[in-house]
């Protein structure tokens, strides 16, 4: 055990290396270099080092159990500090920090310590290896996660991100204050940095800054943005999509008279951020039938200077017909000219109504952040409600799909498709070539455009010949050379024809043809499995650990799946429309109109037939059982779309 009582020490400006002490007993490890003052051999010293890594002095320590390695060299005040690293008792280095850095890199310590993530991180930080830092942080996070996800999240938020934000904020204050405020203000703000807090909403961190920083943040928006982007970048190493920062009432607030007023700490609210269950039950909107001005505990005007203590309670919109398009009085401007706005509440329960435009225009960053937060809550609540409803509808939808697959209907629909392909291969091929069920036949028609071009060319030729023969008028030339012109084929104006597709009719149930050849039953069976899996996943989902984006992602997956099922099923269900007698009649007429010479198509008593020239008949019995009920799948689809 190493311990002692404080003692007064005369200032020392130069010391020599005495040994080192391994403080944790781990190997390899950074160790603490110890120094001795030559004039007082019993006194051991450690270095005092400033932020620039320069030795500012030495502090006396008492120690037992340290490794002695006396050397006539050591740091002086003003030198770079010395650091030490021990691989094993016979292999250690004590040197200037920059020399030790080079050595650690030369010995590939950053690469060889990957299996000890925290030592690796310490080495990366010591050597200032910025490129390695992200991976090192992520590895340390993962390593902690093996013990507990909560441990890892606490470490990420409270031990890595929060100090980083505090340091950056302190730098911003130091940079800004000399120009704007007296020194006491700076000291006060630096003290307030201790009140910067981090909480967590699901898996992403949420930072709360005391209201004192509103002025700092607003005075240097670019500097503040820079800080946020640095913290976001750091958070991204842990896979955090985004961070939320709120500047608001927190810790002691100073009122206009300078006396300290204790307000409910914002962080308490953040810690008590609504759980998903509470969010689902929370009411966000005031109904169109409820006039905000009828709410109890309503104040006419905002309390001066205490805006940041307000919390968003409800949102209202009276600019709709149901709300009778009535303006609502605003507690900021005192006028009644806002349709939309918020009900805000003070910690003592009193309420004020603030128009959306007034809030955004006059309450700055605080309002924007609160509004964004309220909006985020609202949007998460919607996602949660949707998730809850979808999870409750999934079992019935899966059961319905299973019934469809097990029933005869599906097999019958596929069998009819197969018969159509086998009995009428030419017809099938032509149908495949049509576009979206448009049945076209080719018709021979005069090509007016080509004929006009031909006529113009002949007229030009006659004009040329008349001119060459010395005629002033080409009609005169034609009259006098009638026999020549009449027998010249190149001057004969002939009708020109072209083939034009003509829409013969429209085939209903066309999608059935495409669906029936795309292995629909196998695909539906696979989708049923996915649907079952999704149902189980959603029902077991711990939403509190997921971001809103991730929740939406889960819903999107189910939506994609449901849409795919709907596409296949509705394609197969078009079988009924396809086999309708009038549809088949159109099909037969069209096939005959094509005059392919393969035979005559007829439809009689629900039977599509083709009699080929040899007299042989091919038939398709066009009967089909009623389509199954898929109302549960339909309801699921609608729930996902809303």
């Amino acid at each position: 055990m190493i311990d002692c009582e404080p003692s007064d020490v005369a200032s020392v400006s130069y010391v020599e290396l005495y040994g080192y002490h391994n403080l944790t007993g781990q190997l390899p490890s950074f160790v603490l270099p110890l120094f001795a003052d030559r004039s007082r051999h019993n006194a051991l010293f450690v270095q005092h080092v400033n932020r620039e890594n320069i030795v500012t002095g030495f502090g006396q320590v008492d120690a037992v159990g340290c490794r002695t390695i006396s050397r006539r060299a050591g740091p002086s005040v003003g030198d770079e500090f010395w650091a030490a690293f021990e691989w094993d008792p016979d292999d250690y280095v004590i040197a200037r920090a920059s020399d030790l850095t080079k050595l650690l890199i030369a010995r590939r310590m950053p690469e060889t310590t990957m299996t000890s993530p925290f030592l690796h991180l310490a080495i990366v930080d010591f050597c200032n290896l910025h490129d390695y830092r992200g991976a090192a942080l992520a590895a340390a996070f993962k390593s902690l996660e093996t013990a507990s996800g909560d441990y890892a999240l606490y470490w990420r938020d409270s031990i890595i991100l929060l100090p980083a934000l505090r340091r950056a904020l302190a730098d911003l204050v130091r940079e800004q204050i000399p120009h704007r405020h007296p020194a006491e203000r700076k000291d006060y703000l630096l003290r307030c940095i201790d009140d910067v807090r981090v909480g967590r909403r699901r898996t992403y961190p949420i930072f709360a800054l005391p209201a004192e920083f509103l002025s700092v943040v607003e005075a240097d928006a670019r500097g503040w943005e820079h800080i946020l982007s640095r913290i976001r970048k750091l958070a991204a190493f842990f896979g955090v999509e985004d961070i939320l920062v709120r500047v608001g009432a927190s810790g002691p607030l100073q009122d206009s008279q300078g006396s300290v007023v204790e307000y409910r700490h914002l962080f308490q609210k953040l810690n008590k951020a609504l759980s998903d269950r509470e969010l689902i039950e929370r009411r966000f909107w005031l109904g169109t039938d409820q006039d905000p001005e009828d709410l109890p505990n309503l104040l006419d005007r905002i309390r001066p200077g205490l805006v940041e203590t307000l919390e968003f309670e409800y949102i209202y919109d009276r600019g709709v017909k149901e709300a009778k398009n009535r303006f609502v009085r605003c507690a900021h401007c005192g006028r009644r000219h806002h349709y939309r706005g918020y009900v805000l509440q003070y910690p003592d329960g009193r309420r004020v109504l603030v128009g959306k435009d007034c809030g955004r225009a006059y309450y700055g960053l605080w309002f924007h952040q609160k509004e964004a937060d309220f909006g985020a809550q609202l949007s998460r609540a919607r996602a949660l409600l949707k998730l809850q409803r979808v999870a409750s509808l999934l079992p019935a939808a899966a059961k319905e799909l299973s019934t469809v697959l097990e029933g005869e209907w599906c097999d019958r629909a596929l069998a009819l498709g197969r018969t159509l392909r086998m009995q009428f291969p030419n017809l099938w091929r032509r149908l495949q070539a049509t576009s979206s069920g448009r049945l076209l036949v080719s018709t021979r028609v005069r090509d007016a455009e080509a004929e006009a071009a031909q006529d113009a060319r002949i007229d030009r030729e006659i004009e040329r010949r008349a001119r060459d023969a010395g005629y002033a008028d080409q009609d005169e030339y034609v009259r006098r050379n009638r026999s020549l012109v009449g027998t010249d084929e190149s001057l004969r104006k002939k009708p020109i024809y072209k083939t034009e597709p003509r829409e013969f009719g429209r085939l209903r149930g066309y999608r059935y043809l495409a669906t029936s050849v795309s292995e629909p039953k196998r695909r539906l069976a696979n989708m049923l499995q996915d649907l079952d899996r999704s149902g189980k996943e959603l029902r077991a989902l711990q939403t509190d650990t997921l971001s809103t984006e991730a929740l939406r992602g889960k819903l999107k997956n189910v939506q994609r799946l449901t849409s795919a099922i709907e596409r296949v099923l509705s394609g197969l269900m078009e079988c009924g429309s396809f086999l309708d007698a009038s549809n088949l009649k159109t099909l037969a007429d069209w096939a005959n109109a094509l005059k392919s010479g393969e035979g005559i198509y007829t439809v009689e008593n629900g039977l599509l037939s083709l009699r080929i020239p040899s007299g042989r008949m091919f038939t398709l019995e066009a009967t089909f059982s009623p389509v199954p009920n898929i109302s549960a799948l339909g309801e699921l689809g609608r729930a996902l779309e809303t």
Partner: protein
Amino acid sequence: MHSRFDAFIRLRPPVSGELPLTHATDGFTLREVLDTDCLRTQECSVFGGERLVYCFLGRAAYRANADEPPNALLAYAPVYFVLKPSTNLLPKRVFPFDTGGFIKFQEAMHHRMVVADFSLDPGNDSGRRVIHVYFGSNRRYIDNEPNAEPEIPALAFEARGFHSLITDRQRNSYDDRVSAIEVQFDRDVPLPGLAEAVVLPSVLLDDPAIKAKFAEWGAQPLPYDLVARFKPVEYVSQIRTLIRDYLIGKGYLD
């Protein structure tokens, strides 16, 4: 027999809310703690060689000032255990300050006052009563911001002496141990279910056995960067803030 200080304190109400206890040790001792799952009593020179476990109410009590580094190597690799406030163990003794530093504190008191004059009833929420009288709230106690003018009877010399001691901003020879409420146990303190956090050098978390043990105890690791601690300027922003943030985050200072 109650001390005179306790006679004054026991009539005051306790502050609302409880604080956890902290126990300081070092990286080496941690290994023994991991093996035994408890904080073992150790011989104490101040109390005649009794075997005791020392804890403090809420504070990382040995905290050094930013410009005054701890002068023992122990302080360079400290490990702190944060213990849940509700423990079935009855303390042996409770004092309003770190008894180890009493010799220094005597400078601010009457020369005939002794440690025993400040002993408090160990089974009477005495620590919370001291906080109520001298600090008003747990947050102010943790931040060492004493009340300026508590009501103290004229003849309650110990109570007045203690107030002078904790409000003395001129003297630098003692740190905030002067107002760190000390809680002594005369038996080993078991850690499973009782330890709620452990402050330790981050490199120790590379040991899977340590992480597994913390998970078994239900104790949140609060790692700090040992290399940065080689630079005393980083001290305050490391351990003090770690524990303060932890207490706030857990709602102890609401």
